[in-house]
Structures are given as C-alpha cells and as structure tokens.
C-alpha cells in the first residue's frame, strides 16, 4: 500500500517554562506520521500531552523543537500572513467542550460563517447564508437553527455546530480534541457516526484525541498511546487492542470497564509503574518497530522480548 503522508511530526518537543525550574516537558520528543484519509487516534491520561500535541500541530503553540510538516510544508517555519492563512484553511480543529468553544454572543450563522469571512469564500450575504445552511444540513441541523444563539442548543447539537464551523472552509485535515467526552452516551454515538460519514464523503483525515479508549478503537485506523509527554506505543487499532506490548498500554486497556457484568467480575487491572522497566544508565530507550507498523518505546533488551511476544 502506498499511503501518502499528509502530516509528519518529527522529534517534536514542547516545553513550557523552558529553562526555568518550573519547566514542564509536555511533549518530549515524539514522532509520528498521519496518512491521507486515515484517522489517527491519540490516547492517554489527562496531562500526558495529547491535547498539547494537537494544539502544537495546528500552531496554537510554537514548538520548542522539532518539526511538523503538513504536505511537506513546515507548519512552524516563518511564514507570511497569506501562507499562514492557506495552511489554516487546510487544517481545522474541533474542541472538547461544546459549551465553551462557541461564542455565546454570536448567532450560529456568524459562528459558522466566520471562517468563510476570513478566507473570503462567500461573495455576498446571500451566498454566505446559503453556504451556512448547507453546512448545517450536512451535520444534521436545519436552516432555522442559523438564527439562534448557542445557549438554545443541547450539548450534542452544539458539537454539531462546532463540526460545521470546522467544515466551513473545506479543510483536508481535522484535529478533534476529545470531541465527544462532554456528551451523553447516546449522543456520542450520533457524533461519532457523523464524523465517520463526513470522512467517507469528503475524504477527510482526522487526528482524534481522546481518553475514551473504546470509542477511539471504534473510529481510528491507527492509535498512538502517550504517557508523560512520550509516545510509548503506536500500532493499527486492532493490533494495539489485541496485542498491546508496552506495559502502560496493557495497564490502560485493563482499566476500561466494559458493559458486560460477567467479564467485569473477572477483570483484573494491571497496575503500571514507570520504575518497573529498570532501565540501566547506558541502555538506549528508543521507539522501535517490533512488527511492521507496530512501534514501542523500549530498550534493546525489551525489544527482543517483545519480538518474541509479538510473534506468538
């Protein structure tokens, strides 16, 4: 398969308060690629740097070090205004909290049309309105909704508005930062289905950030697991769930409660302690490819053990 790389993240680092005693290494040297048309899931606990990764990719933060290449073009390099604009049109973001990410003083029409205005995609008010109505219909709302304010909508509807806003400029790549974690179970399924349908229709590429592992597995083609700013494992979704290799991934998977009481009675949670690796001072801990497409952060010794494990 010759998949085309849409996004390349190379040795990305994002330190907050760099050089000070309070330095936080939110992203500590991570690398991964996202191919055109796929959904890449990024999971981990709160504070592991998954949201920071999303925000750094879209240049909401300036990276401390490393590179993000979108279609071969560096996101963080010095750019003219028009270059930034061109990039922003290709990359859009859907935020976690549909209550906080829509301006309460703006009508839905203006919220969705903001991108159209910035990029000059609508020639006159009539076209602008028509485009917004089309977008609303795409996400399962209707044209009456355009003249309302965000507070008149439920959480699921608001998230649909957030999706319509992201779609307004016809992006290729969407970063969805925990788009469903604030929603009810039955509504989560609606939004996930919508995202999947849109992907099929428009050939979108997603970076899907979440901590709900069961939903991530459902929507993603490949998944990366983050722990304390580092990517510890990366594999195709079903491989990761069937054959997790890094002890943290195993621990994370063993913690998910499933809607199955009989299974729940026998589920044993595996704890994870970073000290359990017992790395020696001169051991090189690197991201290594154990089986094709399945990467794990490990030492040379662990790597050999995992190879045996993976082939059984």
């Amino acid at each position: 398969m010759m998949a085309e790389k849409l996004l390349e993240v190379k040795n990305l680092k994002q330190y907050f308060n760099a050089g000070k005693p309070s330095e936080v290494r939110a992203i500590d040297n991570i690398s991964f690629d996202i191919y055109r048309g796929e959904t890449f899931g990024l999971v981990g606990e709160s504070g592991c740097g998954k949201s920071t990764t999303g925000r750094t990719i879209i240049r909401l933060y300036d990276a401390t070090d490393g590179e993000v290449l979108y279609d071969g073009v560096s996101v963080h390099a010095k750019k003219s205004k028009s270059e930034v604009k061109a990039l922003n049109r290709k990359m859009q973001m859907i935020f976690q909290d549909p209550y906080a990410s829509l301006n309460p003083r703006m009508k839905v029409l203006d919220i969705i049309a903001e991108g159209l205005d910035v990029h000059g995609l609508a020639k006159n008010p009539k076209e602008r309105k028509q485009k917004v109505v089309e977008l609303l219909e795409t996400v399962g709302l209707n044209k009456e909704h355009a003249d309302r304010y965000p507070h008149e909508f439920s959480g699921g509807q608001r998230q649909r508005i957030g999706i319509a806003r992201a779609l307004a400029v016809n992006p290729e790549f969407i970063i969805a930062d925990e788009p469903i974690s604030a929603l009810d179970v039955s509504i989560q399924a609606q939004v996930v289905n919508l995202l999947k349908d849109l992907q099929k229709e428009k050939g979108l590429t997603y970076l899907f950030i979440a901590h709900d592992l069961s939903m991530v597995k459902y929507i993603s083609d490949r998944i990366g697991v983050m722990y304390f700013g580092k990517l510890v494992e990366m594999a195709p979704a079903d491989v990761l769930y069937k054959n997790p290799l890094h002890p943290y991934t195993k621990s994370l998977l063993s913690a998910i409660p499933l809607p199955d009481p009989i299974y729940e009675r026998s589920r044993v949670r595996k704890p994870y302690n970073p000290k359990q690796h017992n790395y020696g001072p001169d051991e090189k801990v690197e991201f290594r490819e154990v089986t094709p497409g399945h990467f794990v952060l490990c030492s040379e010794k662990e790597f050999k053990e995992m190879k045996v494990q993976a082939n059984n």
Partner: protein
Amino acid sequence: MEKILQVKDLELSFHTFAGEVKAIRGVSFDLNKGETLAIVGESGSGKSVTTKSIMRLLPESSSEFKNGEILFNGNDLTKLSDSQMQKIRGKEISMIFQDPMTSLNPTMPIGKQVMEPILKHQKVSKAKAKEVCVDLLRMVGIPNPETRIKMYPHQFSGGQRQRIVIAIALACNPKILIADEPTTALDVTIQAQILELMKDIQKKVDTSIIFITHDLGVVANVADRVAVMYGGRIVEVGTVDEIFYNPQHPYTWGLLSSMPSMDLAEEKLYAIPGTPPDLLNPPVGDAFALRSEYALQIDMEQAPPMFKVSDTHYAATWLLHPNAPQVDPPKTIIERMKTFRGSRYYEQATGGDA
C-alpha cells in the same frame, strides 16, 4: 432482604419562567441494605434530581414535591423540617459529587473538611476527631495522612481529591452513600482505582450505595441492581445481569447498542435517533416512543405501567403486554440474550461448562 430506603410514586416539579418542568414523574424504587443500586440515564432524565430530592438539596423556592414519599427509618424525608434533615444529611445519608475540583472548599485545609461532619454529628473532642480523620484518609489511600491534613485541595491530584471527598462522605458511617457520577471527571486508570476503593469500603462498612452514572461499563462493574431512567421515570429495573443480558425496554436496548464493543468490528455504531423529551411539555404515553422504532400505537396514547418480567425485574413498555406483537430486539441485544437463562433467545452453551 432489609429495605433501607423506599421511594414511592415520587413526583417533583421545578417552577421556571418558562413554566412547570416535570423533572420526576412518578419514580418508585427500593434500596436494600448493603447493595449497590445504579441509576443510569441521559442528562435530563431525572437521575440526579431523584437523588438530590432524597438529600433535600434542591432549592425550595423553585422545586416542589407534587406527590409521593421517600421513606427512611420510618420517616418521610419529603416532610422533615430543615433542622431534622440536617441530622440525617452527612450522618445517615451522605453524598459524593461529580466534580472533586469544585466540591471541596479551596480555602480550607482538607483535614478540617474531613473533620467537619465528625464534629457536627458526633460528640467527640477535636483531638479524637483528628484521629478519626487521619484513619479515614489512610483508609481511602492518601499517603502520609498525618502531614497531609494541613494541605489544601489544590495540592492534591483529581483522583486524590475524589478520595478525600469519599472520606468526608464516610466520616459518620452513613447507612446510604449517594454517588453522583463520582468518576466521570476522572481518567480510566484513576476511575478504576476509585471504583475499587468504593467496593472495598462497602465491604468494610456495610453501607448501601446509590450510584448515578451514564457509563454502562462502570455500571457493569459496580452495580448489584440497575434502574434505567428516561424522561423523569424509571423505565426498567432489575439485577445487573437481567439488565445487561435480558433487557426488555427499547430504551435500554438503545443504550446498550450505542456502546462500542471492544471485540466486534461493527461497521456503524447504533445511535439512538433524536433528543431526550422536553419535560416542560412531557409527551403523553411512553416518553421514548418518539425515538423508538418499536413504538406501538398505544405508546402515543397511554403511558405503560411496570410489567413484571421476574421477581426482581420490571420494565415499563407495552411490548410486554400479553396482546403486544412479538418483536425482535436489535442484533447486539439478541447476542446478549443468548447467554441469559430464562430469555427466549437463550442458547445452551455448547461444550465447556454447560
């Protein structure tokens, strides 16, 4: 089994500018001693309001008990005065809230907050209360409690804060513990720790727990019995196995089907269409009928009563009426029913432990 709490035909409304919101429309359930009852449902289904009305935490200016009673220790909690209620709250019945970031007082050391209910409800000296407080914090897994009681909430992580909230709730050995989405704000790994802690403590102190959540995985993990709420009513109640392996109400079917399963590779996730009902103008008949593909004509006209499935299992759906047509639930539900002895899809296990 000893019934510790009985809620009978509870009806409660809020008075708002838009009119009367009928948040609870006839809820009845019992809580047995030592059990965990999970109440599941979407936001707005009335699950939190039900428990807040047990604790009498709703603003009296805008909420009104229309009907029904809440029996605890022979008293009807809906009729107690505020001062009588204060003797129950925190002592006999206590509550764990969803968000540990906001349910602790940020300006007060945590030791003082844990000691508060002890000093209020038990005639003990401050020194003794401090001892109890340290023991409690140790029990919920806070390391070095002797030194940490002087610290403030912001010096703890989210999981630790929820542990402290649990310590406060347990301070007076309550008979009933109400946990309102106690793990929703936490990560899976922390959630697993808190659930394990709650189960541990329940064994130690023998308290009954009402557990509110919308996460069915959590329900399967903690609950003995489950009540499913929709549109201000309980639509199905049963043991955890009955609800997960022999569900009868179309809404329960929908909820269970919309959870992605870890092993099956489904093409499309089932999503319940539409949105929850507006309780300003609650629909006549079955509130779920408008979103249900299984709705019958009568669902639009008349609310279904609770039909008995077994001694412990009841569901409010006309599909259980003897005259109703027999329908097949969604595929994933039939798969679940196949494992349940007593369901009509039950299949004897082939081989193994038959």
